[in-house]
């Protein structure tokens, strides 16, 4: 029998609010998750966040008292790869333990509601949790023409600025939201920019990667829930726990680099012996990410372990780095700098931005080179 049958809408709404007001520990216990399971989750979390195991009891105590946060997820110029990375994760029970205990009030790919009802949900979440909700953004924001990307008739930049106003913090998920990503690549036809190019008055965490490792996304959420604060960030806004060391620093092939043993082609003896992929274009030395230790597909491997150079996907302008198979010691083309837009100027800057972008496009066309067969067969 449905217990809600005899309840009024008002009573059900009140019950739902009561549910939202529960601590994370209470929510987990109501789902039948034991304290042992929770400790196991905390141990895995400490491990993935590169925290000392001594932090496990502290994480457990803090998380148990955390409230279920409201989260609004906005998707702009993106491929949905970041959402796929998180929701298709095989480690369902662990990542989703956190993902399921947040109140995901708006995510236009995942939510059942559409059109007016979906936008009403976003507006209601913003109003009810003003100043407290977390805003997650994936995708870059086009500024050349607001019509390039809209949701419910609202331009990406307008929706971002409106939703960011009441956010406690913003997490830019993926390289597109963090640094412009592929839409921002030369010649940047839409004038794509990152969240940090537009929003200047909110704490922003960049979680780049194309896509980012799922546990990095949930790790950042866990950090926020655990300590109510943002993690320590590097100079381009990435959490140090995951992006503090280069792929090269933690690569198990590093000793081959130190000994000067390199694969020269993908099928030579060096490649077969698992030697360093630096000469095949590996961007590991200039790329900061957790792939080498956290790995992909639940710790199975990462690209270098599968015999392919790192593309450097968590770095700004990785798409314009001069060729995925070109060694980083070789000269690369000039990469146009990110144009900085201020939040105040973003909406009104169309004319100036158009001029800047035309100039940028001309420069980009001049410096742009395609990865050809020569690069691949080097």
């Amino acid at each position: 029998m449905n217990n809600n049958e005899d309840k009024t809408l008002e009573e059900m709404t009140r019950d739902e609010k009561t549910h939202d007001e529960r601590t994370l520990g209470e929510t987990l216990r109501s789902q039948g998750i034991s304290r042992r399971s929770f400790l196991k989750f905390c141990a895995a979390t400490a491990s993935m966040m590169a925290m000392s195991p001594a932090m496990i009891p502290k994480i457990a105590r803090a998380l148990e008292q955390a409230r279920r946060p409201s989260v609004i997820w906005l998707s702009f110029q993106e491929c949905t790869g970041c959402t796929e990375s998180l929701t298709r994760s095989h480690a369902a029970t662990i990542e989703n333990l956190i993902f399921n205990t947040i109140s995901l009030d708006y995510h236009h790919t995942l939510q059942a509601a559409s059109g007016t009802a979906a936008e009403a949900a976003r507006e209601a979440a913003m109003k009810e949790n003003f100043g407290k909700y977390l805003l997650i953004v994936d995708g870059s924001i086009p500024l050349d023409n607001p019509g390039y990307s809209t949701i419910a008739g609202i331009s990406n930049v307008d929706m971002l600025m409106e939703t960011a106003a009441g956010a406690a913090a913003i997490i830019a998920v993926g390289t597109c939201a963090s640094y412009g990503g592929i839409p921002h690549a030369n010649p940047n036809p839409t004038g794509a920019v990152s969240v940090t190019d537009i929003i200047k008055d909110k704490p922003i965490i960049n979680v780049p990667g194309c896509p980012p490792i799922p546990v990095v996304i949930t790790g950042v959420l866990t950090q926020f829930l655990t300590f109510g604060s943002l993690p320590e960030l590097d100079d381009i806004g990435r959490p140090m726990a995951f992006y503090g060391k280069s792929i090269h620093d933690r690569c198990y092939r590093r000793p081959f680099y130190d000994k000067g043993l390199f694969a020269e082609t993908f099928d030579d003896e060096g490649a077969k012996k698992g030697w360093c992929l630096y000469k095949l274009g590996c961007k590991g030395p200039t790329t900061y990410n957790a792939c080498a230790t956290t790995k992909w597909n639940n710790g199975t491997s990462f690209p270098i372990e599968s015999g392919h150079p790192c593309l450097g996907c968590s770095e700004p302008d990785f798409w314009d780095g001069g060729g995925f198979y070109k060694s980083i010691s070789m000269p690369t083309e000039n990469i146009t700098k990110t144009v900085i837009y201020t939040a105040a100027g973003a909406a009104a800057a169309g004319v100036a931005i158009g001029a800047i972008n035309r100039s940028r496009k001309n420069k980009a066309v001049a410096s742009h080179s395609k990865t050809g067969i020569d690069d691949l067969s080097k």
Partner: protein
Amino acid sequence: MNTSATAHFNIHYGDELTQNVSPLLHEVKHALDSLIETGKTSIIDLRSIPLAPGEEDKILQILGRGEVQAQLYALGQSEIFETQYTGVWIVTHYNDEKDIISRFIEVTTMPEILCSQTEDMMAAYSRLALYLADEQKINESPSEKSA
């Protein structure tokens, strides 16, 4: 996760690429000394140390297996066993897909996760009390009817 000795892209078991095996075992030795002398427990996260394919297997092989092993089923399986060096435990957590999500060397008399947790005991007490109350009601019912 693949933990077999030779399956990773032609990197072989004996290669010892990072040279981290021996220093880590020395760390375990110091931790065991500290446990004996002061009772201080230690946890080493094997995921925090760069290890080449095969090196983790080598560490596990050297530590070996001792007298105690336990299986835990909580959000996926966990395997806990004491190594042949008493007081040195290997705790491996898996998810539902049987992939390793974390692995620790714990130097302690008993890993914390094996101990019964207060919150779970309180919930267990409530469940048992509820069961006994229900039983009592069922047992009382016939007499009430006859009365």
